């Protein structure tokens, strides 16, 4: 908590104004990024061709095919996965009040990884497009397990965090064992684990969209309750908040959002962990605003990472998950050095 020792009332108007300005700038930046993502790449396309590809698609035009069938689905994936991860990270850190908590902590990434490894080993499937449902199934199963072991809706924060870390480690150990036993699984897995949007198709996006929408809706419902929970369990109960219900909604939202994003893009570690910190720096402690900012920042981060990975500068084949961490890590360290840290 930040201590407010000054007796003067905080300049509320200017602060709120600044926040709106930040949000407007972030949304504008996101729009610019989207336009750039459609235009740039190994094969640059002019603005007019981008526009006509979106409005009057011509199946015989190579530029149109690149924009419409290759860049647009990837952009959609990056926007959805980024917003989902940012939102889920904000929920997770708000729920556990632990700055180290990331969506993967609920066992989601571990479950998805095990699902994919089993899928290769048992079913012999090696086409990444088919991993979606195995990853989603693994993510859902393991997160339900974590939630039950963590004490369900009555879960104490610490117990949930420890249970999540234990189950994640357990699943990752099983996965590691499978990789060591089967070379074919290793061969497929070491590319999946990089996380990215290669080979994403609109049908996959459409199939996962309902999960994301339900997750976002639950997140919105859970926000006021989480705000009260930040004051501590007893204060929240005293305010008349049904803490168990708020936790359950937040937990379900995290699972839906992360499960869908890991199915779509593989395990992307950085966005869900770091974006909420950036959001708290700009939006203050209110969970509702933190969630909104996190969604926008997360979408920005992944869109930028996806675009940069496709530029000739990086050989045009760098996975978004790797780019996110390679760029995000140094940026985060620089921000921490400059701004200090606001604790939860």
């Amino acid at each position, binding site marked *: 908590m930040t201590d407010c020792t000054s007796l003067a009332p905080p300049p509320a108007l200017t602060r709120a104004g600044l926040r709106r300005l930040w949000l407007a700038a972030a949304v504008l930046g996101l729009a610019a990024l989207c336009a750039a993502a459609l235009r740039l790449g190994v094969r640059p396309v002019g603005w007019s061709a981008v526009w006509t590809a979106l409005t009057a698609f011509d199946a015989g035009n190579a530029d149109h095919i690149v924009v419409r069938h290759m860049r647009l689905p990837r952009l959609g994936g990056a926007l959805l996965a980024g917003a989902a991860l940012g939102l889920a990270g904000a929920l997770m850190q708000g729920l556990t009040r632990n700055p180290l908590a990331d969506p993967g902590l609920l066992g989601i990434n571990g479950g998805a990884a095990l699902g994919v490894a089993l899928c290769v080993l048992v079913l012999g499937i090696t086409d990444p497009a088919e991993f979606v449902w195995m990853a989603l199934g693994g993510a859902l199963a393991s997160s339900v397990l974590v939630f039950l072991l963590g004490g369900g809706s009555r879960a104490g924060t610490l117990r949930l965090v420890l249970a999540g870390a234990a189950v994640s*480690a357990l699943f990752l150990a099983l996965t590691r064992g499978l990789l060591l036993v089967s070379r074919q699984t290793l061969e497929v897995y070491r590319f999946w684990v990089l996380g990215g949007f290669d080979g994403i198709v609109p049908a996959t996006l459409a199939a996962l969209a309902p999960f994301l929408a339900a997750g976002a809706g639950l997140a919105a419902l859970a926000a006021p309750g989480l705000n009260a929970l930040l004051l501590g369990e007893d204060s929240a109960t005293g305010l008349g908040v049904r803490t168990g219900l708020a936790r359950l909604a937040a937990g379900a939202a995290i699972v839906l959002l992360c499960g869908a994003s890991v199915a779509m893009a593989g395990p992307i570690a950085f966005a869900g962990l770091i974006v909420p910190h950036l959001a708290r720096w700009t939006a203050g402690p209110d969970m509702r605003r933190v969630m909104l900012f996190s969604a926008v920042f997360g979408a920005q981060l992944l869109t930028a990472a996806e675009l940069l990975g496709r530029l000739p500068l990086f050989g045009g084949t760098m996975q978004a998950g790797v780019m996110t961490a390679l760029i995000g890590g140094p940026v985060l*360290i620089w921000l921490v050095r400059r701004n200090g840290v606001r604790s939860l």
Partner: protein
Amino acid sequence: MTWTLRISGLSLQISRHSLLAGLAAAAVLAAAAGLALLLGSYPLSLAGILDALLGKGGGLHRLIVLDLRLPRILAALGAGAAFGLSGAMFQVMMRNPLAAPDVIGFNAGASCGALCAMMLTGGMVLPGAIAGALLTAAAVTLLAWKDGLPPERLILTGVGASLALAAAADLLMSRMDVLSAADMAQWLAGSLNARTWRDAALVWSGLAVLAPVVLWLHFPLARLAMDDGIATGLGLPLARLRLAVTATGILLAALAVSTAGPLPFVAFAAGPIARRLIPGGRPALLGAAACGALITLLADCAARAVPAVQLPAGVFTALIGAPLLLWLLIAHVRKGAL
């Protein structure tokens, strides 16, 4: 019932409770070590083992017990204890149950260093790993330093470095040929295969050197666990203490990695498990060391018990540690720190 032990300027309070806990831990570890001596493809009876330990019995028995099994067991116990101590120190200092040496980039640095060494020289994996880990930890500590070392800054800086390096390691893995990748996957899992007296001697002499430092940090560390206000009020030099704890924790982790490779989960889980088995408000550093040693030894036994698939011990540390932690979480729903 407490006894006070005074050695010139240093005094230690030992309660009956912690003495009993210590004895119990020693007994469990001894039993596990005995079990580990019995395990293996060459069948030995308890009597045969005792004979070999006492220097009697046939030459083959002596070779198997004294030169193959015993050093490996001692190396496992030493590496596990070092991991456990290191993790518990970080958890107490950062007041965060999720903290472990890898929070400040230790594991990611080690993996990256090992992979770079493999790609550049085709070998030198261990020196590369240790160099990578130490460099990363030093860089993170330097970058997080600004008139002191507040835990939040250290954690966030470490996470930034850790994730970037882990991504770089994944990238290197995907750019290798599949044979090297499989070899590296074996090493990165952590294993205690073919450990000799030299390895056991290294880890135990390292522990012997660092033990007085840990003992000396024990008292201030317990005060660091509360909050900065209390610690400052007691006149503790916060920044210097945190630096000392970080350095000690990193050295312990490096010691463990050079003995057993980057075994996952031990450093993280030993503290919380000890905390639940040995109640009491102090940082249970010794308990964490004992738990780490036990998990590592049992994991190595499991790796040896399944000779058909050559799985390294690192696959089993989490398989053994995680259920134990979960069971304790379910059994003791106690509110408490860490």
